[in-house]
């Protein structure tokens, strides 16, 4: 168990360092790293501190968020196909961002877009909680999530549909693909507190998720407060996914694939899977963000496109493996 943690931490550290030294500036690796720590008066320090550092921090934090939220959601619903977007937070955050782009709020004010996305996430999660009711089975949460996702998705399409401005429409489409390019330290300060809070909330679920292995009834009889567990799950997921979507757009597949991939390495224990998926998610997003810069450096390849391109075949492979086990 600790070995897995060391291996994953090592991978995350290596990829984090990679994310810091790889980029279009093409500076030597050691010069880049030293420029990060010592202000040598060259533009390299500026590149490192203002461009690459925020990008690496965001990849790490958002990857960890999506991984842990995915593991928590799968553990709670006892379904390996659940993903953090299930409760509708990412779609409602996206709707907020889309409205900000469409109305010009995003252009008028630097944080117009992320703040509007956060507002969308908050509204979405309040709606989900109201629909799902204060207590009740996990099925009501899924249904409420589907309703909110569908509604937010439909409204996003409506905005695109009625958009009189083709530039705004294309900006919306590109934003929705998800990216970490050109994010500043200000984006980090906006997202990090919420992500930190959400990760702490999600980490407290370990015990309850372990008990839920035996079903809701048995878990309750083992002293787990299911009402509180569900509220913590929804608020925690909303915080990490809302903040992530607000600064990076919608990035799919990380929350779905990473827990699935790591489950065999933690003996399928849903509690231990939480931190493992956080590290795994961070590694996957750092790797994807390096790929974006290496494969097509001049084309502004979008991060969400890469995670889906990598994630879908990986997931297919997992399905194929599961199918063989079933036979």
């Amino acid at each position, binding site marked *: 168990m600790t070995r897995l943690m060391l291996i994953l931490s090592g991978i995350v550290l290596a990829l984090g360092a990679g994310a810091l030294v790889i980029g279009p500036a093409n500076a030597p690796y050691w010069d880049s790293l030293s420029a990060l720590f010592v202000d040598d008066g060259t533009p390299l320090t500026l590149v490192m501190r203002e461009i690459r550092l925020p990008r690496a921090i965001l990849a790490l934090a958002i990857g960890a968020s999506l991984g842990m939220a995915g593991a928590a959601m799968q553990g709670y619903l006892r379904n390996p196909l659940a993903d953090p977007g299930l409760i509708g937070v990412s779609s409602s955050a996206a709707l907020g961002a889309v409205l900000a782009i469409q109305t010009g709020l995003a252009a008028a004010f630097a944080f117009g877009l992320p703040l509007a996305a956060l507002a969308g996430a908050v509204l979405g999660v309040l709606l989900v909680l109201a629909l799902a009711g204060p207590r009740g089975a996990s099925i009501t949460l899924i249904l409420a999530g589907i309703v909110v996702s569908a509604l937010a998705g439909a409204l996003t399409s409506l905005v695109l549909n009625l958009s009189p401005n083709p530039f705004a429409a294309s900006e919306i489409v590109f934003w929705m693909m998800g990216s970490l390019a050109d994010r500043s330290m200000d984006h980090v300060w906006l997202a990090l507190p919420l992500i930190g809070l959400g990760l702490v909330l999600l980490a407290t679920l370990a015990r309850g998720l372990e008990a839920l*292995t035996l*079903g809701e*009834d*048995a878990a309750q009889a083992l002293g*787990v407060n299911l009402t509180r567990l569900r509220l913590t799950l929804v608020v925690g997921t909303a915080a990490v996914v809302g903040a992530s979507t607000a600064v990076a757009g919608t990035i799919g597949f990380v929350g779905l694939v990473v827990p699935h991939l790591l489950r065999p390495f933690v003996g*399928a*224990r849903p509690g231990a899977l939480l931190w493992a998926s956080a590290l795994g998610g961070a590694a996957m997003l750092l790797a994807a963000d390096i790929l974006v810069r290496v494969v097509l450096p001049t084309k502004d390849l979008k991060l969400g496109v890469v995670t889906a391109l990598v994630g879908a075949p990986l997931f297919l492979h997992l399905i194929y493996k599961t199918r063989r086990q079933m036979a």
Partner: protein
Amino acid sequence: MTLLSVSGLTIHRRKRTILRDVSFSVGPGELIGLIGANGAGKTTLMRAVLGLLPAAGTSSLAALPQTARAQQAAWMPQAREVAWPVSVERLVALGRLPHLGTGQPIGTADRAAIESAIANMGLEPFRHRTATNLSGGELARVLIARTLAQDTPLVLADEPIAGLDPAHQIQTMRLFAGLAAAGRSAIVSIHDLGLAARHCTRLILLGEGRLVADGAPGDVLTPDNLTEHFNITAHFDRTAAGPIFQPLDVVRME
């Protein structure tokens, strides 16, 4: 000392009254068989007693805070749900959760409870197997072991022996009887009246939305009760080999 006292418990679900005014108490050293036809409310009663269902009236267990309740009574639901392919050992260890603080690792006492539960259910050869790959009967034994590992004064089990082979049925009933002999108590819902008559110290019969009879097996399994609440006739005899109960025929239902 009573381990559980239930009084005037009334349970409504979807505007129907499932059970009305059920009262009983459980002392130490009892193995109580909860019997009744399908739909008599056995599961409902046990869940309400545990506070998992809203009910009018009082149950001393339902009144406890959740952690204290989990240390007082273990619950084995009828649905044999295991969501993830965890090992048998891990699954049994889940029974120790109520005894562990947040983030506290499994200690010596926990280890001992887990080992004794594994040994008691004869699960030594299965220890490292994946729980979701076991047969139904094997899984039932693992879940019983999980309940035993919780090491509570009271155990409530919903049809624990359904799906077990005869040897394991007898062994499981003996195990519960052993708990009772050691001063703990168990309430098990059970359809096999023969095993109930042989192993239980007391039977509680539910029928027509109420508690019909509560007492020693011989006093509860009367021809009248069997005809009225199970629609059967049966042969019941006390022999040198212990009480023998064999259902014989179905009474014509009108």
